[in-house]
């Protein structure tokens, strides 16, 4: 394992395809121009990204972590640029994380709370897009409850679009921050056994993670009752398990998904107590995984349902690290897209 100039662990196999040491001279780099090799104008999903695109983003995020740990966190890559956070679904940490990321890169960030917007007055998504576009933003961050809505919006605007979660489809920045967290703690992703547990059927986090982690060579498992697994999941490159004992065996990472409580009473699973009993992560179930297995959760957590407090707050939990990585990953994404912003 190599050590970066900032004293962070680096795994050679993850770095080399990108041109080696270049990525590790972060703070020395230009304040106003990005060096990230990222060929896409939008980030709509993990699907369509090559392994090298993902690694480029993770490497850039590593730099952003370093930057964010400094007293002076500000850069000017996005100075003068306008970033609109357009959230049709309530969000605390994702929206805050995008806002902070944009501000650290120098952008002017505007949060559009949908409750106050004309969407509530019946405006269609496409009309909203056209209206916003007329304000000449440079980047729009979108979360929407419908799968495919962000893609639709991206076709109607002339700026870059980042998907902050669309329905049960994708949540690419969450998958990137999860991958960054794993890579920084385990030193690699290739060859790890990662168990994604819980409501896979309704989870955009699960879909993006499956795509990303398998692209980087991890062995991915999903663990859930059949009613919370989408049909055809076994053909998405994952192993399917229906008990925690089987699914967690020898896992390096246990990734819990948030359970939507409104899905809990009888429709998909019989009750909270039954779900917690068979699928809630406690010390006992965690013991099936490797002794050094780490626990992740995209938050916000339902304590005592999908995860026990003792585990969520315990020494093997990466939940707070994930939040920190979230800001860094979003900075990397914004920076990567800045290549493609209009120049005049």
């Amino acid at each position: 394992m190599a050590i970066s100039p900032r004293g962070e662990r680096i795994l050679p196999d993850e770095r080399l395809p990108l041109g080696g040491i270049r990525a590790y001279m972060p703070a020395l780099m230009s304040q106003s121009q990005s060096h990230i090799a990222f060929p896409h104008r939008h980030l709509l999903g993990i699907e369509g990204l090559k392994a090298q695109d993902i690694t480029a983003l993770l490497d850039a995020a590593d730099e952003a972590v370093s930057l964010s740990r400094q007293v002076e966190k500000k850069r000017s890559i996005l100075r003068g640029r306008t970033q609109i956070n357009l959230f049709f679904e309530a969000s605390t940490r994702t929206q805050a994380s995008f806002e902070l990321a944009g501000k650290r890169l120098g952008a002017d960030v505007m949060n559009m709370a949908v409750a106050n917007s004309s969407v509530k007055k019946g405006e269609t998504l496409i009309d909203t897009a056209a209206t916003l576009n007329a304000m000449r933003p440079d980047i729009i961050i979108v979360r929407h409850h419908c799968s495919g809505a962000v893609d639709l919006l991206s076709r109607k605007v002339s700026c870059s679009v980042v998907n902050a979660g669309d329905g049960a489809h994708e949540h690419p920045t969450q998958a990137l921050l999860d991958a960054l967290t794993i890579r920084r703690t385990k030193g690699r992703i290739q060859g790890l056994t990662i168990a994604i547990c819980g409501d896979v059927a309704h989870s955009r986090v699960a879909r993006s993670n499956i795509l990303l982690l398998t692209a980087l060579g991890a062995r991915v498992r999903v663990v859930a009752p059949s009613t919370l697994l989408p049909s055809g999941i076994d053909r998405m490159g994952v192993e399917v398990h229906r008990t925690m004992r089987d699914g967690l065996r020898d896992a390096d990472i246990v990734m819990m998904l948030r359970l939507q409580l409104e899905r809990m009473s009888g429709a998909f699973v019989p009750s909270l107590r039954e779900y917690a009993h068979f699928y809630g992560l406690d010390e006992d179930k965690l013991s099936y995984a490797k002794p050094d297995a780490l626990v992740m959760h995209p938050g916000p957590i339902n304590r005592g349902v999908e995860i026990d407090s003792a585990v969520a707050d315990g020494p093997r939990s990466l939940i707070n690290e994930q939040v920190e990585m979230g800001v860094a990953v979003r900075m990397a994404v914004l920076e990567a897209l800045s290549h493609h912003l209009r120049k005049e």
Partner: protein
Amino acid sequence: MTTQMRPLAFINARVIDPAGGTDVRGGVLIADGVISAAGADVTAGNLGADVRAIDCKGDIVTSGLIDLRVFVGEPGGEHRETIASASAAAAAGGVTTIVTSPDAQPVVDDPAVVDFLKRRARDNAHVRVLPSAALTKGLRGQEIAEIGLLQEAGAVAFTDADRAVRNSQVMLRALSYARDYDALIMHQAQDADLVGQGVMNAGERASRLGLGGIHAAAEAIGLDRDMRLLKMVDGRYHASIVSSSLSLDVIARAKADGLKVTCATTINHLTLNENDIGDYRTFLKLMPPLRHEDERMALVRALADGLIDVVISDHNPQDVETKRVPFSEAAFGAIGLETMLAAGLRLVHSGEVSLVRLLNALSTRPADLLRLPQGRVQKGAPADVICFDMDEPFVLDPTQLRSRSKNTPFDGARLQGRVKMSCVAGQIIFGSDAFDAS
């Protein structure tokens, strides 16, 4: 308790093992609650000195019957039946294991109620009592019951009793969820809209009596839906009751398709038909309804060739208030624990079904479905055995029945075949005086 007992032997018997299909002269030796030897070698001559021998005088000894659907009245229906009275009726009928129906008050959809039943059974029953639990909460067909927790508490199967799950999405999820726990679903399939307000089989008899009819298609449509759902999830499905040749066609196709499906019919549907309703006899008001004689014969043939796996009593005690009312207002259901074997023997006496096949459907197949070691007269199996005289004739006197309710459709019927002794885990729980003298 049984471990301190002397070994017990039933000798001079016709020993039938409905699992292996053997039928030999000999005996059955029991020690420590299990069968230690069975067959021609167990004779008076080669028993140890400490063995208590019982001479069966040529009567049949076989494994105890297992009934997959019994309404025991607890909790909440103690005026109709209790675990104690159901156990007594079962023992007298040669039924050594009963699966309780979850349509109690409260419904058996909470692990605490399963626990209650197990405790009540431990204290009040001599036969084995295994609770089945609700498939959906409150039997309402809307939300999946806590199948995992109920199974851990001891529920052996999941069923909404005589209610069909109307919503196909709920049924699909229930099948899918139950599959994760390898749980057995027992479902009485029906298209509820087609059943409507019907009270007997649709057709000429219903028209002449002026009663609302229930088409056989209602059941077949429900079953057909379930088979299509089952094919998507690959779970275990048992059709609680099939009553017509249309339903048999669906089951035959599903079995040929390789689905893990089994089916049962009731002793009533095998031995009675819609004409037995006569002048509005409410004791023959059943759900599904008794069908035309052609349908009954189709069921008998399906039992003989094994398409019908299991025969149940569908023991459903109803008190006079719910039966001594006009036919269309009367409750559905009949008792059957005590008469199931004798009624079934009608089919053997008439030559339509072999004795071994009948006993297989009453004992081995239900044991297999529940994954019990019972249902076989073989070394090592639990000593749940019965002895019966298959020829002894009698006229059924309802007042002699042990059930709290007397709504038997065989009221005054001539039957042939008497249970002489029932034994659970090597303990005699029912037997005539002749058996006690050794």
